[in-house]
């Protein structure tokens, strides 16, 4: 078969252990045809065009069974597979209307599912882990703003799709590990051109000394036109901002927020 791409940027699993917490990341090329076929079968939906099925980020506590991981399969398993929440591209009506007469026989939508790959995935908790419970205790942002040395950093894509040139959808994880704490941001970002923006952020904060984990989930969403209008009133480079989930997270209104906590000492 075709030889495998061996780009130096793709490495063996990276890992670091700080105060009893082991952090592992793996970045490999997108899946080949056979594993994609397998995944399609198991998921029941067509995976995104760029599917980094071997990539993951994992955090494990060495002295207890607690652990959490983020991987593409589990993220995609939470995508709506029924088609009940299906979006339509901006020019869908125009497209379909122009074809009503000529191709009346073709009405059937092939394998309907949420092709925007929207997911509320907040990570896969290791079996036997002490469970998360709802809390009001927020992630201590001030502590995370301190310029503590970053001992380990990685940015791992799980999947990405160009929505057939109708925007972008992407699930990626960033993690930074400092001497006393870590922050993981797992972000689903979707822009359907001229239709909608979506952000689903999961932040996992681990305090190594307190042996405490806080997980925050935020869902943000806004119509494309409203975002465009907001940006038009600024001096910003609008197309650039529309590609930048960091900037968009300041603009998109919050739809849902959840806080959970687990303490490994109690």
């Amino acid at each position: 078969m075709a030889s495998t791409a061996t780009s130096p940027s793709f490495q063996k699993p990276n890992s670091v252990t700080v105060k009893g917490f082991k952090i592992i990341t793996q970045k490999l090329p997108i899946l080949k045809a056979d594993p994609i076929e397998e995944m399609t079968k198991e998921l029941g939906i067509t995976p995104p065009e760029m599917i980094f099925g071997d990539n993951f980020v994992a955090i494990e506590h060495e002295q207890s069974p607690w652990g959490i991981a983020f991987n593409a399969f589990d993220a995609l398993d939470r995508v709506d597979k029924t088609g009940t929440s299906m979006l339509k591209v901006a020019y869908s009506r125009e497209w379909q209307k122009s074809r009503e007469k000529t191709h009346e026989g073709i009405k059937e939508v092939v394998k309907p599912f949420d092709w925007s790959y929207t997911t509320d995935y907040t990570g896969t908790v290791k079996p036997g882990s002490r469970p998360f419970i709802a809390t009001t205790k927020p992630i201590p942002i001030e502590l995370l703003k301190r310029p503590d040395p970053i001992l380990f950093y990685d940015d791992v894509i799980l999947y990405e799709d160009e929505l057939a040139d109708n925007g972008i959808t992407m699930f990626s994880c960033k993690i930074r590990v400092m001497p006393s704490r870590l922050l993981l941001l797992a972000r689903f970002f979707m822009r359907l051109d001229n239709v909608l923006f979506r952000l689903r952020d999961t932040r996992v904060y681990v305090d190594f000394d307190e042996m405490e984990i806080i997980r925050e989930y935020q869902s943000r969403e806004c119509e494309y036109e409203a975002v465009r209008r907001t940006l038009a009133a600024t001096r910003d480079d609008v197309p650039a901002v529309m590609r930048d989930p960091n900037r968009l997270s300041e603009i998109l209104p919050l739809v849902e927020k959840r806080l959970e906590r687990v303490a490994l000492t109690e």
Partner: protein
Amino acid sequence: MSDLDRAIAQLRACRLIPEAQVRELCYKARELLIEEGNVVSVDAPVTICGDIHGQFHDLMELFRVGGDVPDTNYLFMGDFVDRGFYSLESFLLLLCLKVRYPDRITLIRGNHESRQITTVYGFYDECIRKYGSANVWRYCCEVFDYLALGALVLGASSELEPTGPSMDTTQSTMPIDDELETEILNSRGEVTMSTYRPRPQHSSDPSSISPPRDISATSNQAPFRSGAAGTSASGDAGGSYGSRTGAVLCVHGGLSPAIDTVDKIRLIDRKQEVPHEGAMCDLLWSDPDEIDGWGLSPRGAGFLFGGDIVKRFNYRNDLSLIARAHQLVMEGYKEMFDGGIVTVWSAPNYCYRCGNVAAILELGEDTSNGGTVARSNGDYGRSNGILGSTNKAAVRSPGRRYRVFEAAAQDTRGMPAKKPVADYFL
């Protein structure tokens, strides 16, 4: 050295040419392209390439692997621009080569060769960044409107000439008198896989042979063929045999329910922005899928077509293969529907982060007919059970050589750093 040769040299070095020269180049290109039909006829041998997406250094790698223009005859199936960082250098170089060697390179239109798409996916921004205005973008878009919608490769050989030493051990078990149908080569030119098929038998009664029964495709022992191709010497009711293999239709996306013959593509008024409606849009946007018949994409726009559609279209048009691009395939190429259609993808490590390999498809020239190429795409026969018709003999698919290649080394050229830069994200 002419200005054009100088421009080619400069672009090959990934340096842009002045705006005035771009303008002149685009003007010349348009004059040339306006003469081309919607479906360009291309004689084998030809090397068919898929999406490039502004990955200039990988385009250079493609030329290294596939041979240079004009030594190699190229057919690019669109999506030259957007996504990558060097859409301008890539497209302008291809355009220069087109103007310089019009008969050695064919460019057809992809869905990214459009004003609307390039405004969103990078090419417009790149033009502004590199030239300081939208002028060059405008010149290029005018060229896009004149690009052909498809190409028909004629005179491809059903059998490959084997490439040197093979790393594939399976072939030693193959009978020697089988013919080489496909070959996969890595970027060093080493064979990594080969497939064979039985050589058709000599016979004066083509109907007794099945499934492949094109008697003109007997062997490389040309002098002993029972009936010269194109002469109807076989006496088959399906008409004269114009070629050993059927023609190969190349198009960026795929088929359209509004198009049942290649000739209908010829009737489209193509000199416009890619519309949302009609056959022109479908040819540039649709995708094959494992379905029966036609389907609508769940996205609410775009057609999907199944294997039966491909079979019927190929049969009706005496095609042995449809080559298309448009979709990322990790192995660089993907054959579907019993080899009736192939997706070719030529952008390795797509978007500088996918780690995929790319491929180009070489079709050899059928020399058994003294180099004469049948011009028709409707005369030579084929047989296929699905329509219950038996008066057409089977066309044999062309021998297919895939050259698979990886991304050009990136360290030297100021790409975005692969090692993520640690930041204090919140």
